[in-house]
């Protein structure tokens, strides 16, 4: 037992020397935002999803931190792109009017697809190869860059951006479907399956389209 106590004591000592716990508003804001992301992608009732987002914003507002507040609204926009919806700016522009955060401004331009004003060096690192491929207009290269993104949400956002830039290939759509499916993001999965079905229909491949239709029906019947 003495050894266990010694170990525990050492652990406590190390914990004490480590980083201080995050302030409550960050913890609460982060948790609400993560719940919002999960609920949004899985397709929980929009009323509940929205409450989580509003709560996250309220928590962050307690600090008046324009950077984090901007990030919260940009996260919302990015999620809308990830499920192939039109992104809504919400209060982001208001926040930017109060204080411009270069990284946030750049991410906003990235989501908007404003290539001229975008500074690649300010983009989150995981998106840089994707952005370069997207700008080259090479669909195969873009699909490869999307597949290489580690984070599933970032991968879905990149896929959504590629579609918005009319770089739509079966590989990109399948990558997005696979990503949503593996993570159990039902709403995102349905959106991407619908897109894939339309893609096959447009290409005149009725068999593939019908298989996707069956998969959608199966998901909706659960």
């Amino acid at each position, binding site marked *: *037992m003495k*050894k*266990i106590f010694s*170990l*525990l004591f050492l*652990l406590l000592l190390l914990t004490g020397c480590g*980083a201080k*716990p*995050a302030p409550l508003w*960050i*913890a*609460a*804001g*982060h*948790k*609400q*935002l993560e*719940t919002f*992301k999960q609920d949004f992608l899985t397709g929980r009732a929009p009323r*509940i999803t929205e*409450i*989580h987002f*509003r*709560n996250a914003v*309220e928590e*962050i*507002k*307690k600090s*008046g931190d324009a950077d*984090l*507040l901007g*990030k*919260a609204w*940009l*996260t919302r926009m*990015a*999620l809308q792109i990830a499920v192939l919806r039109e992104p809504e700016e919400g209060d982001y522009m*208001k926040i930017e009017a*109060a204080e411009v955060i270069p*990284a*946030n401004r750049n*991410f906003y331009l990235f989501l908007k697809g404003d290539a001229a004003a975008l500074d690649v060096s300010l983009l*989150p690192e995981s998106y840089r190869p994707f952005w370069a491929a997207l700008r080259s207009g090479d669909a195969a290269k873009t699909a490869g860059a999307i597949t290489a993104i580690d*984070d599933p*949400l*970032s991968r879905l*956002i990149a896929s959504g951006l590629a579609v918005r830039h009319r770089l739509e290939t079966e590989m990109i759509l399948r990558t997005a479907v696979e990503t949503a499916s593996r993570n159990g993001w039902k709403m995102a999965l349905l959106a991407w399956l619908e897109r894939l079905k339309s893609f096959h229909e447009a290409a005149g491949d009725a068999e593939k389209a019908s298989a996707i239709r069956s998969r959608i029906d199966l998901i909706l019947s659960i």
Partner: protein
Amino acid sequence: MAQRIEFKVGLFITITSLLIMASIGYVAYKKGVFSKVYTYTLSSKTGENLTEGMPVAVWGFTIGRVSSLELNDQGTVLIRIKIPERHIRMIRADSKFVLDKPLIGSPRILVNTTDLNGLLLSTEMIPELTESNDINEIIKRAQPIVDKADRIMANIEQITANLADPAGEVNRILRDAETLIARFSKKDSLLEMAIGDPESVKSIHEALKKLRDITVKADGILQRVDAMAGKTDEELYGRDGVLPQFRNILRDLLAKLAKIDATFDNINKVSSEAADSTKDLKALRNELDETVTAIGNLADEIDRKIPFKTRPEIKLP
């Protein structure tokens, strides 16, 4: 010569003093100490929830504070708020002042201004402070808490269902732990098991180390559960709430681990004296490994289900 040194020292002290004063002055200037502060008066029927120093906020940004509270002859509470000149543009004649009482956190006064180009509010005017008491507001705020409680309940239910199941993982672990303790408590068996084979003793030590690591890990989870306990409602975290029950289960498990640990200490003593070989040691090692792996899996599962990170970070997706 001495006079010259005195002059230099004097000059040095004078320049240093001037520099210090200039620095203090500059910092004070930057902090807005010299900027003009406007005092506005608000009225309220009650002084409940109002305190001196309470923040006054616009769109989540603090722009001023309550400087004083007083009761006038008509029984109305007069609230004086101080707003620095740089934020004065937020206070307009049509501004509404609302006392915001969040379910969690301190109350504050919110200023709602629709027209930032409207007339500035005169310091002679006494607008009324209203309260955000809308029931819908409360429901809106309560929803995520209920939602969260619901999720935790579902997780706890899963764990307790496992506990109630005689063939469940937790019961199996406890049975295994009890079997081990029972075996260790028999002195004859102990003497049989504890032998001088260095390889076997080494493997037991490795298993023991693993067991201790898991004990520390489980204790870490307990600490996190404890840290959660002071934060939310009575039903969930109160004396009879679900989380304390969950914590008791973990404590029970830890107590059993501690017993095993003590028994191992005994084995170590005995093994240094005994020098006989036995097959039981291998069986014991297997049993121990199985128990350790099962406890480890359980600890990981609990850890996964209560994913409270110490330093959450809000990042771009």
